[in-house]
Structures are given as structure tokens and as C-alpha cells.
């Protein structure tokens, strides 16, 4: 039995090592390779708390395994009668006080960071001309997509959050229908989007996303919100401040852009008739749209948040969205379209871009 136990320990140790070595995950989604100041601090807290907890686990394991190995009946004989000990005040005090001290040590960074992460006073700060100094994004979570409004810039986008690196970005979070939760694992922890109040927090993006596999960080909905909860993904594009300013200018330049129902282009005409009611194609505006803003559609990374970014995906999606996002609110809202029309619409929205 003891031999088996040793083997088992060795095996589990190896398993742990393998897991640690192989399993930091993909850098665009894992919390273990943080790409932002908030995520880094949370990662440090993770390491700090794991170290304290590892100490506890080691102490307990050593005592436990020693006792188990030493005091087996098979070693002591069938008739051995152990001394009936009531307890020990000294020991009780020791294992009450030491954990309290360990927890107090853990409490200090916990309290400091709790208040630090909740500090959003800078959202209201203005420069001499009265402009807000910090970038604020209003996030609205909807079944099953995300809307990002930049109130100071007067622009709005969806599904793909674009942010500058190297500065704190502040978020106003709200849900339009049921509760969701806004989470970009590799940048920082999550915050719920409630239906009745606006939650505020900040994140800092320290790495440009261009070098990542898809050129974006992955964002997730973390609160069960219905059948397609698992598919309520968004992406995050982080740009240098200069590139970000260019992007904002390009978005602002789409003001007034719309689709013409009389267009000779079948795609544009179909879009104007069937899609434009919910999907704006101008990036200028505020949140509150029925469907995701498509002004930057061609620049995006996925169709409907999860499908490959291709014309075929759009065709499949527009033909019948239901299998790809069960319970979505688009199904059945735009009447019957012919295959030709769908193909033309797909071609058309693949031209909607603000990037070069």
C-alpha cells in the first residue's frame, strides 16, 4: 500500500509539472500570460495566494502522510490500543493563530487592489478645454452580441472593441436585455453588465494585438444568458495611440454613410431593404441599435462572433442564423432572401471597412 502511495505521489507530481509546463494556454485568451496592468496584478495575486496556499497544502500533506504511514494497524498489531488523547490547547492555538497570520498577510494586497481596481474617478477628469482626459467606452451587452460606444468621439461599433495601448481605458457596462458579464481574460478580470445599473471599471491594454494569431484578444460573456451564452464572444483590437486616433478619425468620417435601396448593386439594394433597419453602416452614432453596427465589418475577425470570417460564413448565417446562434434575435426578422440576394449582401458587407 505504501509503495502504491509513493507511486501515486510521483505520478501526481509529474502530472502537476506537465500541466504547469504545457498549460499556460493561448496568449490571446489565457489569464496566465497577462497583456495588461490589471491582469498582471491579478496574476501576481494569483501567484502570491498560490504560494501561501501551497505552504498550507504542504504542511497538511506532510503531517497527514506521516501519520498515515506511521500509525497503520498493520504495523502496530491487531490488538494495539492507542492512548486516548482528548486534545491539546497548545496545538489548537498554533493552528488557529498561524492561519490567521497567513490570512492577514493575504488580506493586505487584497484590500489595496480591491480599492485600486474600483477607482474610476479619472473618468470625470477634464483638461483646460473641458475635454475628458481619459478614454471611456460604453459597453452594452445584448443577446448575443456586444455594442461599444465611444461617447466623447461620437462613434459606435460592435463585436470588436478597438482600444489604445498604454493607458487606462474606462468602461461603463450595462446589459440591454438579460444579465451578461464582460470579460477579456488576458487583459483583466470581468465585471457584470447588469440590467438596472451601470457598472464602471477600467482595464489597461499593454500589448498591441497585431502580432497575435488572429490579431485580436478574445473577449467572452461570463454570465449564463441563454442558449447561445457560449457563443457570445467578442474580439479586442489594441492599437498604438496614434493608430487608434487614426481609426477614430476614419470612423468619424463614415458619418452619414448609408445603403441606397435604388442602388444598381444588388447587395447594397438588398441590404437597404432588408438589413439597414437594424444594422447601421455608419460608425457615427450612439448605442442602442437593434443589431450590431456593421461600419467596420470587413475589418473584423469573425462573423457573428464565432464563425470564420468569410463570405461563405455570411451566406450561411444570413440564410438561417438559428443553427449558429440558437435563440438569437435576428432569425426571422428580415423575410425571405433569395440565394442570389444573400450572396450579393455578403459581397456588399465585406466591403464595409474603415481600415486601409
Amino acid at each position, binding site marked *: 500500500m505504501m509503495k502504491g502511495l509513493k507511486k501515486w505521489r510521483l505520478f501526481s507530481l509529474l502530472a502537476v509539472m506537465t500541466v504547469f509546463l504545457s498549460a499556460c494556454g493561448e496568449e490571446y485568451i489565457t489569464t496566465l500570460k497577462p497583456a495588461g496592468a490589471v491582469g498582471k496584478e491579478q496574476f501576481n495575486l494569483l501567484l502570491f495566494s498560490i504560494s501561501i496556499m501551497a505552504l498550507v497544502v504542504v504542511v497538511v500533506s506532510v503531517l497527514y502522510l506521516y*501519520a498515515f504511514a506511521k500509525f497503520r494497524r498493520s504495523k502496530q498489531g491487531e490488538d494495539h490500543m492507542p492512548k486516548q488523547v482528548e486534545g491539546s490547547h497548545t496545538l489548537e492555538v498554533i493552528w488557529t493563530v498561524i492561519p490567521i497570520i497567513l490570512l492577514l498577510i493575504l488580506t493586505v494586497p*487584497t484590500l489595496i487592489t480591491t480599492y485600486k481596481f474600483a477607482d474610476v474617478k479619472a473618468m470625470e477628469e477634464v483638461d483646460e478645454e473641458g475635454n475628458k482626459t481619459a478614454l471611456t467606452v460604453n459597453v452594452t451587452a445584448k443577446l448575443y452580441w456586444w455594442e461599444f460606444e465611444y461617447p466623447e468621439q461620437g462613434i459606435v461599433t460592435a463585436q470588436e472593441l478597438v482600444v489604445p495601448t498604454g493607458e487606462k481605458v474606462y468602461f461603463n457596462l450595462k446589459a440591454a436585455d438579460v444579465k451578461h*458579464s464582460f470579460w477579456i481574460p488576458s487583459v483583466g478580470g470581468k465585471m457584470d453588465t447588469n440590467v438596472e445599473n451601470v457598472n464602471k471599471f477600467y482595464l489597461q491594454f499593454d500589448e498591441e494585438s497585431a502580432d497575435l494569431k488572429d490579431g485580436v484578444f478574445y473577449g467572452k460573456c*461570463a454570465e449564463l444568458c*441563454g442558449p447561445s451564452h457560449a457563443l457570445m464572444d467578442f474580439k479586442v483590437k489594441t492599437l498604438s495611440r496614434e493608430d487608434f486616433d487614426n481609426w477614430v478619425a476614419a470612423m468619424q468620417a463614415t458619418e452619414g454613410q448609408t445603403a441606397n435601396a435604388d442602388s444598381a448593386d444588388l447587395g447594397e439594394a438588398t441590404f437597404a431593404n432588408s438589413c439597414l433597419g437594424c444594422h447601421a453602416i455608419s460608425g457615427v452614432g450612439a448605442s442602442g441599435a437593434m443589431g450590431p453596427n456593421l461600419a467596420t465589418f470587413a475589418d473584423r475577425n469573425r462573423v457573428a462572433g464565432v464563425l470564420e470570417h468569410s463570405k461563405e460564413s455570411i451566406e450561411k448565417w444570413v440564410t438561417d442564423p438559428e443553427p449558429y446562434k440558437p435563440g438569437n434575435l435576428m432569425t426571422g426578422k428580415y423575410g425571405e432572401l433569395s440565394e442570389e440576394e444573400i450572396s450579393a449582401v455578403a459581397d456588399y458587407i465585406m466591403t464595409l471597412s474603415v481600415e486601409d
Partner: protein
Amino acid sequence: MSSVAVAKKKGFGATVWDYLTTVDHKKLAVLYLVAGTLFFAIAGFEALLMRIQLMIPNNNFVSAGFFNELLTMHGTTMLFLAATPLLFAFMNAIVPLQIGARDVAFPFLNSLGFWLFFLGALFLHLSFFMGGAPDAGWTSYASLSLYSPGHGIDFYVLGLQISGAGTLISGINFIVTIITMRAPGMTFMRMPLFTWTSLISSTLILFAFPPLTVGLFLMLVDRMFGANFFNHTMGGNTIIWEHLFWIFGHPEVYILVLPAFGLFSEIIPVFARKRLFGYSSMVFATILIGFLGFMVWAHHMFTTGLGPTANAIFAVATMAIAVPTGMKVFNWILTIWGGSIKVTVPMLYALGFIPSFVAGGVTGVMQATAPLDYQLHDSYFIVAHFHYVIVGGIVTAIFGSFHFYWPIMFNRALSEKLGKWTFWIFFIGFHLTFFIQHFLGLMGMPRRVFTYQADQGWDLFNFISSIGALMMGVGVILLVTNIFMSIKSKPLNCRDYWGDGRSLEWALKTPVPFYNFKQTPLVRGFDPYWLEKHEGNKEGMTYAEPLGDIHMPNNSIIPLVISIGMFVAAFGALYHPDGVSWSIPVIVIGLGITVAAMITRSLKDDLGFHVHVDEILATEEELYGKGGNK
């Protein structure tokens, strides 16, 4: 009812009738055990379906909507309808014996509690066949549950309301039983730890279930009668649901885990052949955990946006729970320290429990670190954490206690050999399933997802996790096989099956007669049976009274009738929002049945019956041969 007849062979119909009407705590324990095992198997099967779906990315094994029904019913069933009744089974079977009582304080209510629980659970499960099960998670957060179409959430609300009433009634019954029914000399500080934890757990039920009842009631009138408590567009507030749910939900965890602690505190001293180390600090730790359990509910809501001060307070309060829990762990280890450890199946579960539960506990402290929890919350990390606590802590306690108490409950033993196989397969499967999920969470995988895309680095770990889940499934099948095999095995007819029993229940010879103790025992110290045994007392106990007539309660069908009335009325309430014409009449008929049964109960005097001395002697002789229980 004649006492001797109880032990005689009865026809099938008579046996069924006996169980439908029984108020005997030992038979109700059997009913709880059977019902709990049934629902455990159902919920385990649901978990397997989910793990098969998640075995590979983009799987189509179950649909998105059905997956949400599975995860909701898995959580709801495991906590309310599997773990709770299984622990109630042991509380019913063992607590009266441990304190030297002939039954619980209110045998009628004991039966009512069971039937309400069972019919509520049945009602909830009928949802699968009647248009879809609830699909908003076991937490049923208000915005989603109000949005959810169909009747799934209505089944959840009504089913839990009925079964919750049963649980509350049983909880009150145990509080009164433990306080008032203790044998002479069984002072509070001589009570076995399982009785103590049952008392504290029942007290938690008393305070935790009313907030749930309130929450469910508000949800019920919101969904069925168009009130707007949680409808924010009409001035309602969904965060109130979160508070109400977790003010119940967090203590619920302790309601389940405290009796599990108690069971291990019984198992470990027996197989270490050594008195429980630090008894009084164990009692103190139990009370403290119970108290603190009510102070920490908002740690489930760190990301809800309650603000830094609330988060800070609840973070510190949560960490504080680690202290009494740690005390318990060290006391268990010091109990086996210097003991004589015999590795039987129950002890194997206890030994497996300690490291598993410690692992679950330390990840709990990590999540109490609020800013870190922003990353861990609602990810697979939390799934791993609470399964380490619930499976590693509660399920191992239940499985271990199956083996430990089987001789007392059924006068049969479960196979040790098969039990060891079961343990290792289940235990390895458990760690394989859940250890790896910590890393899935850290790698960014949210919980409650019905599928995941292939390119996120989660494929391998999900596959391994699913393999572990299948092993756990095999383990459970082996355990059930063991149970069925025990039916065919020879009756034990012995006392102190494990040889090192300490508390009063081991002083009884099995099968235990329906009146438990022919004379009320006199408890002369902690671990009374151990005390008497080592003073050479062959009967295992000293008596506090001479042999005399015993007063026992009559069986009654009324608890079942009361529960059936509620069951019927629930269907009326469920279909009321559909505007069907029969909904109100069905509610009236159902509640009418309930009220009529209650009136009958109130007006008809039922004073029980007496078992006379000659009947007692005859019963004892029939059970144990000439000379009776000597």
C-alpha cells in the same frame, strides 16, 4: 399495530403501505436513501451528458438549449434533491440512535417532510416530459429566468418551493429532537460530532431556507401573476434576487458540508481506534462555521458591482472561514496521529477526503481574494473549486457512510472488496475530472458553456476531464451494484460491526427494533459505548429506567395526502399564466385536499400506542433469540 408483527414477513402490498404511512425514523431514512440515490443517479447522468458534449470542441451531442436544461437540473438536483436527502437519510437513521431516543420529536412531521420533498422533486423532474426543464442555472438569476420562455422556470419555482418546505420542516424537527430528546446524561458536550453538525446544519436550514422561500415566492408571482419584483423596466431589481438567492445559497453549502464533517468525525475515530482529537474545538469550529456561513454570501457577487467596500468586507469575512475549517482538518489529522489506522472502505473515503477537501478549501481562499476573483469568477476555476468541496467533501462522506452505517441501517454489510474498487475508480476519476478544470478556468474558459471553439487551447484538458467523468460514472455504477448485492447477503445480527464503535448507535444489536431502545440508556460520558465496552458491560449500555411500556406513534397516510394536495395545486399554478380555464379549479382542489387532510389531522386525536413489556420481550426474543438483547 402490533409490535411483533413488524418483524414478520409481510406481503408486497402491506410493505408498500407500511412505507407510505411510516413515521419510523429508520424507515424514513431508507426512503430518503432510495430517493436521494435515485436523484443522484439522474443528476450524475446529466453531468455525463454534459461532459460528453464538451469532450471535443464544436460538438453536437446535445443542443444549446438542452445543455442549459442539463446544467440547471444537474446543479439543482445534486444540491436540493440528492445531497440533502442523502444526508437526511443518515441524520434520520443515526441521530436518534446516537442520542438514545426512540424516534424524532415529531414523527408525523418527519414523514410530511419527506413526502413534500419527494413530491416537489418529482414535480420538478416532470418538467423534462412537459415542455422542457428549467434552463437558467441552479442560481436562476432573475433577468434570465424572467426572460426564459416556456414553463421550465415555473417548474423550478414550484418544485423547489414544495421540496424546500419539506426540508425546512425536517430541519426544525431535528433541532427539536436534538435539543429535547437526548437520553439522560447525554449533555450537549457529550453529543457525538455527527449529532452536533446535524444540529448546526438544521439551524442553518431554519435561517437559510426562508430567504429562498421569499425569493421563490416573488419569482412565482412575477412569472405567474405578472408582478414586477424583478422586472427592472417596471421598477423591480434583479440584484435583489441575487442577494436573496445567495443569502440562502451560501449557507446551503454549509448545510451540506457540516453533516459531512460530522460523518467523517464519526468514521475517523472508529478506524483510528482513538478518541476524536480536540472535541470541544471541533464543536466550536462547527458553530463558528455555521455563523460565518451567513456573513459571506456576497462573495458570490464580487463582479456584480457592489463596490469596493462591500467586496473588501466580504473578502475578509470569507477568508475568516478558513480558520475554523483548518482547525477541523488539523484535528482529524491529530486523531489518526498516534492511533491504529485500519484502512476499511469508510476510512478510505475519509483518508481521500482530507487532501481533496484541503485542495477545495485553498482554492476557496484564492477566490475570496476579491480582485483575483474577478478573473476566476464564472470560469471553470470555480467549477473545479466547488466540485472539490462538494464531491471531495460531501459525496465522499455520503459514500463512506453508506459502507459505515449499512450494518445499522440494513443489518447487512456492503462488500469491502468491491468498495475498494469503487473508491479508487471514483476517486481517480474525480481528480482527473476536476483538477484539470482549474487550469481551464485560468486559461480563460467560462463556465456554463455548451460548446467551445477549437482554437483556444482547451481541447486536451476538456477531453481528459470527460474521461475522468466517465470513470466517476463507473464508480457510481459499482456502488449501486454493491448495494444490490448486499440485499442478497446474509443478515449480520451483530453489535458493533466494525469492532471499534464508540457512540451509542454501535451499542445496539442489529436489526434495531422499531422502538430502538427497550430501556432508555443512561449516558455516563463521551463516547458512551466505548466507555461501557471497556468497563466490560456486555449489554453495551447502562439503563436509565426499568423495563416498562413504551409509547410509540401510529403510522399515518395523512402526510402523503397533504403533499399530494400541494403537488396537484402546483399544476394549476403552473398553467395559470396560459389562461387555461381549469387552472384555478385545480389550485382550489389541490389546496382543498391539503387543508382537508390538515383539518383531519387536527380534529382526530392520535395518541399513539403502547408496547407492553411482554410484547417487548417477545420482540427481542424473536430478533435476537432466547434471552433477547444481551
